[in-house]
């Protein structure tokens, strides 16, 4: 329910998206649409084993097939020192396997051929001599003494442990637990999942042998960072690499890392001297790229009998697959997981995290998530509900009692975050009112008498995003600022260039609105350009909800710089002092003489035709924005589900979302983000998971097994908002692209558990299948 804003300016206006016209005409320009003259096609041979030694690869038959140009193996890449590459977490990952394969689906060889049919025909002709090894599937077992060593390629790596990292105050937390009346525990696994945008990954690499220039079109959410990595890995001069990220068919974190396919296609183009296209298939996408989550978490909450939270203790083991490849700030081993105290005034907290290697795909991408805040939010919101049952307090009251109060901001959390602003009770109250919470509780009690089950689940999430202040946040040393370049042309039309890259978030519209709001040039007159490293300023990219908090701020700031210059030009044109001018959106006028004014368009023209002597011509500028802090959006989600007592089947009946992301630039787009996020939250809670059998075979590397909800299962959403601006963002925004994915899974799970809580059920792991609900009921029947 977007609130229509009638105030002047362009913030809060649900204008229609500028980018839509090309998409609805079928004229989007996605990676698969890019074809270059003399282009070759690449297909990847993948390992059938989770763990095996490679004794040899015979590609002679494949190479001999007419139409095959080359077969690339790890051995060939090793000759060029390209067999391994760095991950975004400073580990290494094989481009093509040389010594061993370490997960099922790992890239073993690539065929480069004149067309894709021949490339796939040739894959069947490659013979690989594998010697299967025992696979390590369980991350706990991976850390046992004597577990098979996965990374025997790494000097000094003697076990499967990757990292150990702690946050918070262990001693203070121990004291809190010692004083507690009660300790509530939740043990849960946030399952391995996959962002699975509908467009898979892909690239067209075009290395021109004559000019040595590499133009790489690729599905990348972070083209600048990728270019830098390519320069470092391949030793190519950075100015000779142009990464172009065309329209992206969804990213959700999947398209942040560098994948072997990109590297081999680029290397092949370099070696062969012709463009090489690689389009990933869905199996390849799900089995090898960008998995997410897979945290085994134990959370303990210390409370007094009257429901005051005293402390939180969390132990987490992360199943990283065979390489530590999380896309996240380098200083933080488990990302922002230590936001796990959530919306609560938690006097003490201690978080212990460990990472383990297993024979699974690497990744750990921030799937619609600001670096692990999703797992954290889930854990604390599950804990709160369990605590409420144990204490016999309504989950609403328990939350209310422990929320960080509005007057406590800026609030420093026990793990060190400084929350910028919030009004958690406000969001909760509105959600309760809209969901008619007290009526629901009465209905639930009535229905139980008839043997019918409904459950009400709440999540009051707070997340931390917009990385970030460069003192704390960098990826492989590159600080996490972002940038904007703005040029206003003589006719008053503008082009805004950004270092981020949207994948459906509507930047072409919202960022134009920001500039429109600051300068008064209508959004239709502003072209937003992203995703081409030659033609946009450096930035870290679009993920972790950082575009509006960081790049959006940069856009506002650069517009303000231009406004300052415009003022000087206006003063010159109107022959008054700058102090005598006042700004209203779109023009400067003389104080007290409003008819003496110059519009921004007139000023822009003058910037090229009649600028003051001594001033540089033109109206353009750049701004690199380094945020002073993260932003902390929050929300309350309430989900009502119906559960079939006999079969465990459940479905959502009502979903109420109250989001507070500060100022909304374009409410229509914000709501689109929230509904998309809620749907992924629902998907996560109900059906998404990638599992493995005991030999490490991946179950679920296709859409028949890795389930995405259709319109039929997806519930209807009722959206509401409160607005608590960020005090440190230039226009008060906090970011919203991921809030609902972060916060809503707990609401869905809490709702299902709530429906059967009276039977004694406290926990059902995700995905909450009907079978899992039924098993949970059976388990308590015996004890009850």
């Amino acid at each position: 329910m977007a609130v229509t804003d009638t105030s002047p300016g362009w913030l809060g206006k649900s204008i229609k998206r500028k980018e839509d016209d090309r998409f609805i005409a079928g004229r989007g320009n996605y990676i698969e649409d890019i074809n270059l003259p003399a282009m070759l096609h690449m297909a990847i041979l993948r390992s059938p084993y989770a763990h095996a030694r490679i004794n040899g690869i015979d590609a002679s038959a494949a190479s001999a097939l007419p139409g095959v140009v080359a077969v690339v193996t790890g051995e060939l890449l090793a000759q060029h020192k390209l067999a391994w590459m760095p991950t975004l977490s400073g580990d290494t990952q094989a481009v093509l396997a040389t010594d061993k394969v370490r997960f099922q689906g790992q890239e073993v060889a690539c065929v480069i051929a004149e067309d894709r049919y021949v490339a796939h025909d040739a894959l069947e002709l490659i013979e690989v001599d594998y010697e299967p090894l025992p696979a390590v599937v369980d991350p706990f077992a991976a850390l046992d003494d004597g577990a098979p060593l996965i990374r025997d390629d790494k000097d000094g790596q003697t076990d499967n442990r990757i990292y150990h990292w702690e946050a918070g105050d262990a001693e203070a937390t121990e004291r809190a637990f010692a004083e507690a009346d009660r300790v509530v525990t939740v043990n849960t696994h946030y399952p391995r999942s996959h962002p699975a945008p509908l467009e898979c990954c892909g690239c067209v690499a075009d290395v021109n042998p004559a000019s040595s220039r590499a133009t790489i079109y690729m599905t990348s959410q972070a083209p600048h960072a990728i270019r830098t990595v390519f320069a470092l890995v391949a030793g190519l001069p950075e100015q000779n690499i142009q990464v172009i990220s065309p329209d992206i068919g969804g990213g959700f974190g999947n398209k942040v890392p560098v994948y072997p396919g990109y590297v081999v296609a680029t290397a092949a183009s370099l070696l062969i001297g012709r463009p090489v296209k690689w389009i990933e298939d869905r199996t390849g996408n799900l089995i090898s790229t960008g998995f997410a989550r897979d945290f085994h978490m134990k959370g303990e909450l210390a409370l007094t009998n009257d429901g005051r939270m005293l402390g939180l203790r969390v132990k987490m083991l992360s199943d990283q697959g065979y390489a530590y490849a999380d896309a996240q700030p380098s200083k933080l081993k488990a990302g922002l997981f230590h936001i796990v105290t959530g919306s609560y005034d938690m006097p003490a907290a201690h978080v212990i995290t460990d990472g383990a290697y297993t024979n699974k795909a690497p990744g750990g991408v921030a799937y619609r998530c600001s670096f692990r805040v999703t797992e954290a939010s889930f854990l604390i919101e599950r804990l709160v509900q369990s605590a409420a049952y144990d204490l016999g307090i309504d989950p609403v009251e328990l939350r209310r009692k422990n929320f960080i109060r509005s007057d406590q901001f800026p609030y420093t959390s026990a793990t060190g975050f400084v929350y910028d602003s919030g009004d958690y009770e406000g969001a909760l109250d509105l959600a309760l009112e809209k969901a008619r919470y007290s009526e629901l509780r009465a209905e639930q009690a009535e229905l139980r008498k008839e043997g019918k089950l409904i459950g009400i689940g709440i999540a009051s999430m707070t997340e931390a995003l917009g990385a970030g202040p460069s003192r704390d946040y960098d990826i492989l040393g590159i600080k996490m600022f972002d940038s904007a370049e703005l040029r206003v042309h003589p006719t008053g039309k503008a082009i805004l260039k950004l270092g981020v890259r949207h994948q459906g978030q509507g930047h072409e519209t919202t960022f134009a609105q920001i500039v429109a709001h600051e300068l008064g040039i209508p959004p239709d007159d502003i072209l937003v350009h992203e995703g081409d490293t030659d033609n946009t300023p450096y930035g870290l990219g679009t993920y972790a909800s950082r575009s509006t908090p960081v790049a959006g701020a940069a856009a506002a700031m650069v517009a303000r710089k231009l406004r300052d210059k415009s003022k000087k030009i206006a003063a010159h044109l109107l022959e008054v002092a700058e102090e005598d001018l006042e700004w209203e959106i779109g023009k400067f006028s003389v104080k007290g003489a409003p008819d003496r004014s110059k519009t921004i368009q007139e000023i822009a023209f003058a910037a090229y035709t009649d600028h003051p002597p001594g001033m540089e011509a033109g109206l353009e500028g750049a701004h690199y924005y380094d945020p002073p802090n993260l932003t902390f959006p929050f929300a309350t989600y309430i989900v009502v589900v119906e559960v079939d007592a006999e079969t465990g089947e459940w479905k959502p009946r009502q979903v109420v979302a109250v989001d507070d992301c500060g100022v909304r630039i374009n409410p229509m787009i914000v709501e689109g983000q929230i509904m998309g996020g809620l749907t992924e939250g629902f998907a996560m809670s109900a059906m998404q998971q990638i599992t493995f059998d005991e030999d490490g075979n991946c179950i679920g590397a296709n859409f028949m097994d890795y389930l995405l909800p259709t319109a039929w299962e997806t519930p209807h959403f009722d959206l509401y908002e409160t607005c608590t601006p960020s005090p440190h963002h230039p226009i008060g925004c906090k970011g919203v692209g991921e809030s609902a994915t972060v916060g809503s899974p707990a609401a869905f799970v809490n709702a299902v558990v709530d429906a059967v809580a009276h039977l004694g059920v406290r926990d059902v792991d995700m995905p909450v299948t009907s079978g899992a609900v039924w098993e949970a009921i059976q388990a308590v029947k015996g004890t009850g």
Partner: protein
Amino acid sequence: MHRSITVTVNGQSRTAEVEPRMLLVYFLREVLDLRGVHVGCDTTSCGVCAVLLDGVPVKSCTMFAVQADGRSLTTVEGLASNGQKHAVQEGFKEEHGLQCGFCTPAMMLVASALLEENANPSESEIRWAISGNLCRCTGYQNIVKAVQHAAATLNPQPASGRTT
């Protein structure tokens, strides 16, 4: 090996030589250069490849081009007529029925076929009709609204309460 086929695509007759193993989706994309039709999976699950075959939505990744010989196809490129957007296209833009746009051409084609059959579909009829098409971005709610918007444009309801 190759076979000559003639297909009417968006009202135009097109003839081409194709290998039997060429899937219809690649015929449209690569032989006819109609790029609005996409590929999103290997298992006939996602529906981003949907086109209309004699007016009926089908997954063009699960049909060989040779099977379309003699038949009539509509793709997103054929939705607009005389430079005028189809009501479904308008609806998707007006109601923010798309984000990344990857599922959009297929969604719009399926929606247009639904509206041919049912001028005034309910929310649940729309959800049912598009349940062979995944969208990862929108959460579907605005797609439902987009289709309703198109229905209202194509079939304006007489304003209620007015007597003539």
